[in-house]
């Protein structure tokens, strides 16, 4: 008997208006436990706006964003501040890499541990054994995360000095430091060459399988998407125009038109 997969994220009819412009029009999607889901579509389809609504940067005009952490009560994410969303277990990376350039690679990841640790100002000033232990743990956990993405040798480098592909991996490590059960990746392969994209492929699968983190990614690179994700959701002009398995999407005439149409326009 097939087990009903546990829905971690349930988005119902999400709509986002900016003044007169409807950037996202009644989009629904679900991400289940263990999945690597993808959100694709031509430029300007509203994918990043969708992400921004889910992660709390925008407050959606209509619709519901529901988070179902396993074993806990359901939370409605609409209008919550981004740090609260992250605290609840939903982390993200950015389309245009947003690292902390004047901090070291290790420190970037350590920032991710902030919401899972508690040393306050006074305690940090006195620096008792409890604080020192917590700091030690932060360093260790962060270092381990760097090992997982293959950046441990760069730990004490300034993050701005990393090559591009490494910076993207660092962003992922940083997001993972917040102990999410759902990770939103915004175009993680943008600007990568085929080898780097392949490595990223592997990394995402590893994260999904070993860390037990579900993933929703926005991507433009069809190969990456088709190889590793299922289900796939397709957006165009703010609306969802298709959803399904990679095979279904590949053969879907509406999807083909959306992408082909973009090519002839160019």
């Amino acid at each position, binding site marked *: 008997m097939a087990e009903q997969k546990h829905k971690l994220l349930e988005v119902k009819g999400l709509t986002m208006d900016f003044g007169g412009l409807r950037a996202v029009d009644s989009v629904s999607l679900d991400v289940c436990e263990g999945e690597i889901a993808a959100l694709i579509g031509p430029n300007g389809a509203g994918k990043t706006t969708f992400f921004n609504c889910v992660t709390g940067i925008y407050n959606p005009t209509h619709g519901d964003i529901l988070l179902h952490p396993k074993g806990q009560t359901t939370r409605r994410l609409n209008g919550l501040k981004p*740090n609260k969303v992250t605290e609840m277990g939903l982390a993200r990376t950015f389309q245009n890499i947003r690292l902390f350039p004047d901090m070291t690679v290790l420190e970037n990841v350590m920032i991710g541990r902030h919401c899972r640790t508690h040393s306050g100002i006074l305690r940090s000033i006195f620096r008792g054994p409890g604080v020192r232990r917590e700091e030690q743990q932060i360093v260790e956990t962060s270092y381990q995360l760097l090992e997982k993405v293959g950046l441990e040798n760069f730990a004490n480098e300034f993050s701005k000095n990393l090559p591009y592909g490494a910076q993207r991996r660092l962003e992922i490590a940083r997001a993972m430091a917040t102990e999410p059960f759902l990770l939103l990746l915004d175009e993680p392969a943008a600007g990568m060459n085929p080898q780097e994209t392949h490595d990223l492929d592997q990394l995402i699968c590893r994260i999904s399988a070993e860390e037990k983190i579900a993933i929703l990614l926005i991507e433009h690179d069809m190969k990456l998407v088709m190889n590793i994700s299922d289900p796939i959701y397709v957006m165009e002009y703010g609306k969802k125009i298709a959803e399904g398995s990679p095979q279904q999407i590949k053969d879907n005439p509406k999807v083909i038109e959306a992408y082909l149409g973009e090519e002839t326009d160019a």
Partner: protein
Amino acid sequence: MQEFKQSIIASLWFVFLTFPLMVVRVNTMDNVVEWRWMNILWVAIASFFLSYCWRFMHARQQTKKQESDSGVEQASKVRLLLEDQSFRNKAMAVLLVFALIFPLVFDTYQSNIMISALIYVVLGLGLNITVGLAGLLDLGYVAFFAAGAYSYALLNHHFGLGFWTCLPLGGVIGCLFGVILGFPILRLRGDYLAIVTLGFASIVKIVLENWDEFSMGPSGIANIDKPGLFGLDMNIDGSTTYIYYIMIGLVLFTILITMRLRNSRIGRAWIALREDEIACVAMGIDMARTKLSAYALGAFWGGMVGVIFAAKTTFINPASFTFMESAIILSIVVLGGMGSILGVILGAFILILMPEYLRAFSEYRMLAFGAAMVLMMIFRPQGIISNIRQKYEFKGLKEKTDHG
């Protein structure tokens, strides 16, 4: 040859530009005109040479930039020295010894100057938390300084509260002001943030000037008690030396706490906030709480050292708390290197002590100050001592080795 032409043109331009102000001096009361033709020569010569220097500096900056872009970044010898922990420890020890014996070697006048410099060091370290670490551009820091000073002056005047009672109170009141200022401006960034803080500080100053019943207006408050030492009666020399050592204590206290905070959870949150507020919040950091704590912590030092200032000068009035002060303190932080403790200390010493010791040029002090700000921003924006972050060791994940 091309360069020679450029310098000639620059020379002529500046002679033209400065002609009315440098050459002509009109006395409208006596209806006399004074023509200072020699100034043309000085301006011409100076701008001729300065234009060469300017071009040279710019060219040098270009090559440096190209080097760093292509990844060929040679850490200078000075920087390597600074990053070495044992060197820093030795340097600190030497400075400490020098600071402790200073009043015994030099006279009261010198001690007074040192106290002023040390006051600016603490102000700089305080603002360093708000601007240097958290990146919250505060152009009105002097308001906290005034809050502390006036708190002591008024509490002393009306209720006879002593210095030692008021010292922590000054810090607390500064903190309070910090939160009051910070709360309405949480959403603001960059330039707007700067201007609002400027506005706040100006309002504080104008209120102090005009609300005579409260602050005694422009004439200020006099006869403020100096710090007492178990009721001992001290003369000027003794008092000054006493205050000097109190200041040394405060500076050490400030450095210790700032260092602890800088490499702590909250310190990292502040830096993340400075580097990229959106990413910072997305990583789970509460923006409001982090910003407010930066304002409050920064203001704490301003308030506290304000008490000492009032005790040192025994007389305060609103004229000591102008925008210029805020600009000087901000310069100390920026010129010293955002977030760098040693940089702030050096910056304070250079900016405060140099004018004192180069009294001959004291007229040109502010002029040089303004020019220095511009030049530093163009040619060395990272400050005297640029960012040195904590380095961690991982042989079996040992405890952290360096301290920033």
